[in-house]
């Protein structure tokens, strides 16, 4: 299925006025309500959309916002979108493309796939710029047809993963690793070589382990020990040891085609909350349990 097949030229707007989020939503809602018979419409629908916005922010870091409403007894999926000259601010995320989706309560899978297709598209900076430049709904649909943007039947890891994740090199020192972890507030990251080839992973526990000798791990109980110097030794060693010395090279990885359920399964069986995504030996992404929660479950 092509994404273009779900779109109508008259529901695609180009807006160059300075609008508030509410004003924009109102315009999109009015468009849809004037053409289709919806079970809920007008101010009631506006209320639902805004309430939903409060619960889960519809904005993504790629600059797209996808507010949506699921209605009972509405056997259809409607899409209205607006390209904005003046971006809206969603709690710090600048959004210049807003897509309103109204769908049936039961059709979550199709909805997820549309969202996935939109997210993937929004990642492609060039395509987004092209879409902004088309200027009218017909051209947008033509462009999407030409680009063969598909709505897949099943969501895979490629749709929800973070692309080009932060990664370290094996020759980075632990100090550099600590700085990266603190800067991005991540507890683990993939390790790649200079060509982007996936080598392994390093996480905060590998790092802390440097400060704890093997024999301490063998003790049954540590309650008798109030302070212990070797933990402080981690600081001394941070310039001497490299990521290569502490990284794990036997971690399970995913391919972009992996299904969501398999990813969750692997998170459970490997007791990990994030997995690297590798394609033909190269690191292409990272998926976290939080990605699954925010992009699959809480949508």
């Amino acid at each position, binding site marked *: 299925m092509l994404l273009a097949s779900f779109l109508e030229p008259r529901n695609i707007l180009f807006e160059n006025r300075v609008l508030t989020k509410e004003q924009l939503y109102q315009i999109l809602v009015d468009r849809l309500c004037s053409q289709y018979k919806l079970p809920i419409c007008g101010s009631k629908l506006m209320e639902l959309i805004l309430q939903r916005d409060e619960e889960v922010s519809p904005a993504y870091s790629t600059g797209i916002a996808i507010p949506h409403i699921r209605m009972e007894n509405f056997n259809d999926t409607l899409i209205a979108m607006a390209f904005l000259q003046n971006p809206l601010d969603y709690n710090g995320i600048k959004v210049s493309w807003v897509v309103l989706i109204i769908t049936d309560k039961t059709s979550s899978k199709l909805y997820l796939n549309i969202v996935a297709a939109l997210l993937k598209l929004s990642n492609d900076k060039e395509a987004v710029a092209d879409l902004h430049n088309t200027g009218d709904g017909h051209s947008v649909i033509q462009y999407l047809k030409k680009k063969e943007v598909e709505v897949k039947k099943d969501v895979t890891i490629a749709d929800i993963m973070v692309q080009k994740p932060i990664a370290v090199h094996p020759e980075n020192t632990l100090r550099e690793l600590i700085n990266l972890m603190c800067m991005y507030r991540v507890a683990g990251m993939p390790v790649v070589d200079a060509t982007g080839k996936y080598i392994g992973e390093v996480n905060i526990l590998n790092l802390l382990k440097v400060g704890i000798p093997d024999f301490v791990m063998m003790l049954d*109980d540590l309650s*008798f020990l109030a302070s212990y110097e070797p933990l402080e030794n981690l600081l001394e060693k941070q310039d001497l040891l490299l990521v290569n010395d502490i990284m794990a090279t036997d971690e399970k990885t995913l391919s972009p085609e992996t299904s969501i359920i398999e990813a969750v399964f692997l998170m459970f069986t490997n007791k990990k909350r994030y997995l690297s995504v590798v394609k033909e030996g190269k690191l292409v992404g990272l998926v976290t349990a939080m990605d699954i929660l925010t992009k699959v479950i809480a949508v």
Partner: protein
Amino acid sequence: MLLMIIALLVFIVTYLCIITEWVNKMLAALIGGFVIIVLGVVDQTIAFSAIDWNVIFFLIGMMLTISVMRETGMFMYIAIKTAKIAKGSPLKIMALMFMATALISAILGSVTTIMILIPIVLLISEELKITPVPFIITMVVASNMGGAATMIGDPPNILIASATKFTFVDFVLNLTPIILIIVAFSLGLIWLLYRGKMRVSNERRAKIMEYNDKNLITNHKLLWITLSVVGLMLLAFIFQKPLHLENATIAMAAGLILVFVGSRKKVETIILNDIDWITIFFFIGLFMIVEGLVHTGFIDLLAQGVISVTNGEPKTTSMVILWLSGIFSAFVDNIPFVAAMIPMIERIGEVITDPVQIKPLWWALSLGTCLGGNGTLVGASANIVAVGIANRNGYKISFMDYTKIGVLFALESVILSSLYIWIRY
């Protein structure tokens, strides 16, 4: 004859695999055990009936008991308390740790004791900023000595107990006295070797005194239950004969009660982690391999050989067994050796029929195998485990590093054992 050669070859190849660690010992023993059957040395029924279930279930029962005992924190408590009682003085810590290790080994066995105590001693020596190597070596020595003191301390004794029907009390009466003497002499040897060699600052000493032992035993109820059950177990061992209970029954009863009362919710973890299945199946394979040697008459041949050398004279035979097993155990795993020696001594027992005269042979076998293990780095499992832990923590102990100390203690203890057996029996 051909079958005897096959049986012997399987035994030797298995032994070589175990010594060189080329194959995991359990795998080697099981392969050997079934090769014996496949090649028709013995049939499956005979091989299986050679498995000493009294030993197998005794081991499992003790492993269950130890798992719960360990959970109470009592051993950590003893270790930390020992360091504090020594007031951070290295020589005192070494002497007290030596005694604590011997004592705990007499109950838990040498390997378990080493696995609990060596990490603690590494920690203490790191805090005192002194090398842990002398501590590790002397504690290994102590663990092998302590294990020899009781029926439950070391696998050779467990095997001997099951084969001879000697009771817990027999072991205490015959082995514990000589081990106490050996430990006393060893403490003297430690004083000679290490006095004045280790200096520690007061500041470092104070750190050890700061250890808080209050939280090591958190579950007092579990501690009391455990101590009561272990106490009852020891009583049952002491009154084993009037109670008509075998070792395996007593150990399994204690182990099952403790797991049921103390760790019911963690049974699966205990079965998976705390029962050393490698050892259990190693024994099972070994029993089958040794049965090949017995069934084909090799052991008879060996027994006749020993008797022709010693003229069946009990004292000389004891000395031969003591020194032979002492030297042998210093270089190779002593369990297969004991497993093969047991049927041999049983055959000798058909010649030396007086039970009073045959007894010292068994004690000689026990003392020789357990104490000889101290001789070199590879003489006993506890040695290998301890040095493995030390190496992983950056303290390299070479074969010679260990052996030049270990051999002194091995010689000292085998000489004392010879005198003991010579004079007492």
